């Protein structure tokens, strides 16, 4: 038995002992390892495991945990591990499993529930209506949707052609979920009717194809900086009839082709094909 005088030493020795295996399931794990394990679970399991105890419940709701879970899920290429549930489009009560990837990397042309459901799981049934951007009437509008990692928030980008001005003037506005409001940004020097698609989210930026008379360019909008830039295009052949952007394993890709054949280009490293 340890005496009073050497109790410090005795304690440190005890601390170094493996806790005796309580049963077939082995030792207790410290909180950081519990978090490491739980952050690798699908959303549906996490929602159930909130019932395990109060500290698990707080952990699963902690913003840091939510962010870690999101980043692990978005790099996990095994589809089955990052399913989450959300309401897609206008199909009433059509709750389906889809990958977290889809939320972050695919476009959305209407206001679905923007919150990752784990943040507000009891609210995920509802879709969120975006507030008016302040303009009365839009002759044409296009939208993009993405996640700004620097402020941990979701953004919707709206391109609006205002009919009241009677000309092709384009206003660009960014909606952030947290502020729940729109903000005007500048720097889009193109005609709205030439903007194809709904924005492809890669590398923190949304990408669109802009077609002009005989050629086209790829325009990006950095969601953190809210600045537009032109992105290098692949060296595709002439004579294609269509082109579209997509995401493959986190890389920007472009499909272009005609009725006979199609080429697929992927930016393996952002900026080079």
């Amino acid at each position: 038995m340890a005496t009073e005088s050497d109790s410090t030493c005795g304690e440190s020795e005890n601390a170094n002992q493996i806790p005796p295996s309580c049963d077939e399931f082995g030792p207790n794990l410290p909180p950081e390892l519990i978090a490491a394990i739980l952050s690798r679970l699908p959303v549906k399991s996490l929602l159930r495991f909130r019932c395990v105890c109060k500290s698990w419940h707080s952990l699963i709701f902690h913003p840091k945990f939510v962010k870690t879970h999101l980043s692990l899920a978005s790099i996990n290429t095994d589809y089955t591990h990052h399913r989450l549930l959300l309401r897609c489009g206008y199909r009433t009560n059509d709750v389906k499993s889809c990958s977290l990837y889809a939320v972050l990397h695919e476009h959305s042309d209407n206001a679905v529930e923007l919150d990752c459901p784990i943040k507000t799981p009891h609210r995920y049934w509802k879709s969120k209506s975006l507030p008016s951007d302040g303009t009365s009437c839009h002759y044409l509008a296009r939208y993009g949707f993405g996640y700004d990692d620097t402020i941990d928030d979701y953004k919707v980008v709206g391109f609006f052609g205002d009919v009241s001005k009677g000309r092709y003037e384009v206003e660009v506005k960014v909606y952030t979920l947290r502020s729940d409001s729109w903000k005007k940004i500048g720097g889009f020097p193109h005609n709205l009717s030439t903007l194809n698609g709904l924005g492809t989210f890669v590398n923190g930026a949304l990408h669109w194809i802009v077609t002009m008379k005989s050629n086209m360019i790829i325009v990006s909008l950095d969601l953190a900086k809210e600045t537009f830039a032109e992105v290098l295009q692949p060296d595709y052949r002439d004579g294609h009839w269509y082109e579209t952007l997509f995401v493959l394993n986190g890389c920007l890709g472009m499909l272009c082709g005609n009725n006979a054949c199609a080429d697929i280009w992927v930016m393996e490293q952002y900026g080079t094909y």
Partner: protein
Amino acid sequence: MASSIENNNEKLTLKSSDGEEFLVEKHVALQSTLLQNMLDSDCSSADVIPLPKIDARTLALVLGYCKKHADASSSKQGELNSFDSEFLKDMDMGALFNLVLAANFMEIKGLLDIAAQKIADTIKDKPHQEVREIFHVENDYTPEEEAAVREENRWAFEGFP
């Protein structure tokens, strides 16, 4: 300054909590950031490095992992991936818990990642009551509180007790 290339063939001795000694090639030990830091700072002057938190059974598994990854560092990733999944395949929960603790203590990130993922994969379809037992967690909800949390996401419990 110790040169790791020069001393490549050196071996060190690791001692498990239950007193078993393991002779390990240095390049294998370097898979562990803990051991790497000890070697870099020359703390390893002792003949034997004690690892008082890791029992012999677990340490043998950890070193098997480190050897494979040290020897195969330049070879194909696919081969390592299939080694990893085979390595953890039939491991019981107790062994996995010990492994994840050892990987955390020895700072072997790759092993920590795969062991944590394996535990997650094993528990993901289990009822929360069973998960409580696996992790030795005491239920501190009142029945009413637990029912309220459950009610918030009733759909997630479909098919579960």
